[in-house]
């Protein structure tokens, strides 16, 4: 069950940060601190730094909450992965983690729905979630993907790789333009 939708990056990207390993809450904070330091060295608008930090924060929290890792003995899973790349046009946040195969259809549908939504529809979905949803058992608010889509203004690029009836690999990419085109 391979589903692949890849975008095209026009120039060769430079990796400005990457990490593969466990994502406990403490690990996430350390990684965010490192990202904060790196972003300060980037010559981009403050608003773009803010968006990139926000997306990184939400992606890392998703890795923390939703990654499966059964240890070195389990050949079918691998440690979660996070990376920030940059080319002339975009910063791209990339993540990869192992998830339960049974959760792929729901996740894929959610990604398709969010990608198809315009700004107003995304806000509507956020409002509906705030009004109706409670916290998940893992402490999430079911808002991360929606808010990333809204803040970045970009569509998700993702793929699932079937590994077994139990687990699949989920790869996720979100790009943020290096230069803002906001008028206000």
């Amino acid at each position, binding site marked *: 069950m391979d589903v692949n939708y890849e975008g095209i990056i026009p120039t060769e990207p430079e990796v400005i940060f990457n990490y593969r390993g466990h994502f406990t809450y403490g690990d996430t904070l350390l990684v965010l601190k490192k990202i904060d330091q790196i972003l300060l060295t980037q010559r981009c608008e403050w*608003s773009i730094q803010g968006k990139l930090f926000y997306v990184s924060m939400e992606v890392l929290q998703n890795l923390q909450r939703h990654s499966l890792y059964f240890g070195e003995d389990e050949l079918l899973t691998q440690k979660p992965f996070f990376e920030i790349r940059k080319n002339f046009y975009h910063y791209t946040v990339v993540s990869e983690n192992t998830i339960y195969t049974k959760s792929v259809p729901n996740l894929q549908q959610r990604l398709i729905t969010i990608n198809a939504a315009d700004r107003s529809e995304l806000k509507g979905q956020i409002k509906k979630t705030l009004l109706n949803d409670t916290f998940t058992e893992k*402490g999430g*608010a079911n808002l991360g993907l929606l808010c990333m889509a809204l803040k970045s203004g970009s569509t998700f690029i993702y793929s699932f790789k079937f590994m077994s009836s139990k687990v699949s690999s989920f790869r996720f990419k979100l790009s943020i333009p290096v230069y803002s085109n906001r008028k206000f």
Partner: protein
Amino acid sequence: MQALNLQGTEQTPSIRFNTKKSVLEISGKSIPEDAMAYYKPVMEWISEYRKEVNTSITLVIKFDYFDTPTAKVLFDILTALEKIEGSSVLWMYAESDQDMEESGLDFAELVNIPFKFKPY
């Protein structure tokens, strides 16, 4: 009525109620490990305040950034404040942070409390 004074950390905001000015201020960064647990004292305090005092509160929000679980809790706090008549929100944001301003505008649309916006 117990005082409300939570010290902030690198990942959690400070939360203080100024009894003289009736101002509840939440400021700093908010990426707690468990947002529901961290903000539970605030929800309990508002509930108690409504029973015992019930005069209007100004909620001052001054986040550097906040994650989506915090957004959910903030919505719950605002919904609780709707029940205290005359309460209002002062949403502060860094002048260059259009996203934070927009977050405040989005919350203002969701709840029935007056919002003022102030860049710093």
